[in-house]
């Protein structure tokens, strides 16, 4: 394990580390603390110029206002309805595509890979009109499914890159030995490679979840009504026409940010996967 596990270091270093951790965390999170404090400020503080001082009162009511002024509960549900299928879809598809690109040496391999990577580099604003028109013609405009399909397609680009590289790092001997035994390609994928991909799947799930959860642009392009609007677009509805209600937006942002963080926290254990490298010995 790298760096040297701390419990092997002298006690002084251990204490120093244990002290440094929370200090570093606080410094790291100062902007976030700023957001949290702003979310508890009454609007009068901001209008009077009190941005960073102690709040004149703790306006917990801001959080209630957020739920009252906008159907944020509904928006959050919509965000889940869009994000979870996208994560499942994009990760599943990219497991397949990553496997194809990492394991097989067919001639067009490089070009296909290139296409996936290139397609993900584009400034996605440029896709707005063609994708909107296509979604409309398919009758999926203003639906969560329309949004899901686009996100799955778009995220597959980056996920394929990630998965392909990850699988490339796995010992090819595993696959070779399976082939020698006459195992079919699908079974190799399903029973040998896929279980080894758990850390990558976990990491990618978190990343895709976060990207799609925080997407604002496509929510405004492909969705109109409250029944399908995710929380990002709904959040900015808290801002007034003239006067930005930053204290409400801050409160709303914190609420809206909880699911991705929770997800990361829950998926962490999958990162600590032990690979069965022993299978290739002998």
């Amino acid at each position, binding site marked *: 394990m790298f760096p040297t596990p701390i419990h092997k270091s002298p006690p002084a270093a251990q204490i120093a580390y244990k002290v440094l951790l929370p200090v570093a965390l606080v410094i790291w999170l100062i902007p976030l603390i700023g957001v949290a404090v702003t979310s508890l400020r009454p*609007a*009068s503080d*901001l*209008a*009077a*110029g009190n941005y960073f001082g102690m709040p004149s009162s703790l306006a917990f009511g801001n959080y209630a206002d957020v739920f009252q*002024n*906008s159907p944020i509960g509904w928006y959050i549900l919509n965000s889940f309805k869009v994000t979870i299928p996208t994560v499942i879809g994009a990760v599943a598809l990219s497991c397949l595509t990553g496997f194809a690109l990492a394991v097989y040496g067919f001639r067009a391999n490089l070009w296909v890979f290139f296409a996936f990577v290139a397609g993900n580099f584009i400034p996605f604003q440029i896709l707005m009109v063609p994708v*909107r028109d296509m979604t*409309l013609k398919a009758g999926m*405009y*203003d639906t969560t499914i329309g949004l899901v399909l686009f996100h799955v397609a778009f995220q597959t680009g980056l996920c394929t890159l990630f998965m392909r590289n990850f699988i490339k790092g796995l010992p090819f001997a595993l696959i070779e030995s399976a082939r020698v035994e006459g195992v079919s390609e699908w079974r190799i994928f399903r029973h040998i490679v896929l279980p080894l991909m758990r850390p990558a799947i976990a990491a990618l799930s978190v990343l895709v979840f976060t990207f799609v959860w925080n997407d*604002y642009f496509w929510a*405004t*392009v492909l969705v*109109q*009504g*409250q029944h399908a609007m995710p929380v990002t*677009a*709904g959040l*900015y*509805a*808290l*801002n*007034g*026409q*003239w*006067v*930005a209600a930053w204290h409400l937006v801050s409160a709303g942002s914190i609420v809206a940010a909880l699911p991705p963080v929770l997800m990361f926290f829950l998926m962490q254990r999958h990162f600590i996967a032990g690979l069965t490298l022993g299978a290739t010995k002998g």
Partner: protein
Amino acid sequence: MKTFKALAGLALSAMLMGSVAFAGEIVINSDHSDPAPKKAMEELIADFQAKNPEITVKWNNFDHEGYKASIRNFLTADPPDVVAWYAGNRMAPFVEAGLFEDVSDVWAANGFDESLKSAAASMTMDGKKWGVPYTYYQWGIYYRADIFAEQGIAPPKNWAELLAACEKLKAAGVTPFAIGTKALWPTGGWFDYMDLRVNGYEFHMDLTAGQVPYTDPRVKAVFEKWAELVKPGYYLENHAAIDWQDAIPQMVQGKAAMYLMGNFAVATMKEGGLTEEQIGFMQFPEITAGVPMAEEAPTDTFHIPSGAKNKEDAKVFLAYLASPEAQAKMNATLGQLPVNNQAAKPSDKFLDAGFTMLSNAYALAQFYDRDADAEMAKAGMEGFQEFMVKPGEVDRILERLEKVRAKVHQ
């Protein structure tokens, strides 16, 4: 014969079903996401449905910023029956693309040319009417009445008095004008008023319509006058880094004394702790003697998309929206002014002053970013902001603006 009857029966019932499905529901898309406008809309829709029980309203409320992008999508993709938007050059792209419905008939049938007279010009293109206005608000200089009293300054009525007031304030350690130009549009308000007062309404309309080059000496004259405020440092320093509302605390704390802004600024000032007695309102002072005083009054409107399914009932809604009762009630909640000159005006010190000022105004401008072509507006306001930071570069800035104008209005 039997088949014929059956078919006829089928056709008849289909027609009936079809008409029942249409007559009855209208879909409205708008961006009234603030608490007050939201309440106003809710009341409006409730009252409308009470008066017209055979029509049901489905209302999609968007967030204010996202709406500006969304409208382009839903106008072509899946148009509702009524949309909220703005008057003047702002509605031009949609009118020119044939996406808005001509509602001159609604205006004619209800005598709106009389009751909505002040906004009629900004709703007209090619001699036809393209929507119905329901609210506007005044712009003017809001000032710290108590600081003025302290310094012995009377609200200035002309340019010389304004400069004198600024000098006095600056000497007392108070920045004369608060402003936050990060979002650019506050600079448009300043330019508009300077041009309206130096050159007059007709010239300003010609300029924003792109018929006058920005290198014209009359335009330069506006900037020369404006420089008399910029160069001595009568504006808040570093205004380009802050939004308009982040400049309010300066007024609240007494570090700045005046703010040229729309009436919505009052609510924020009060929020910051100022009392009504401390806030004064005055009309932008005269600059060139004898030029009739025109004012800025940006107008909000509703339109019918040309792709709407239920135009009949949508027109009924527009007619209701423009009625004196509906406008009075809506504007009481909005804290703004009704366009219908027969509506009862709200009783608020500032709105009252605004109403008087606007009713006596020579003419009403819609604000730079609604009067001028969109691309020109963006370039223009960037130029104004740069001028306010680097007044010495005025010639280069005007040349750049002229380049854009020539391209846009070729």
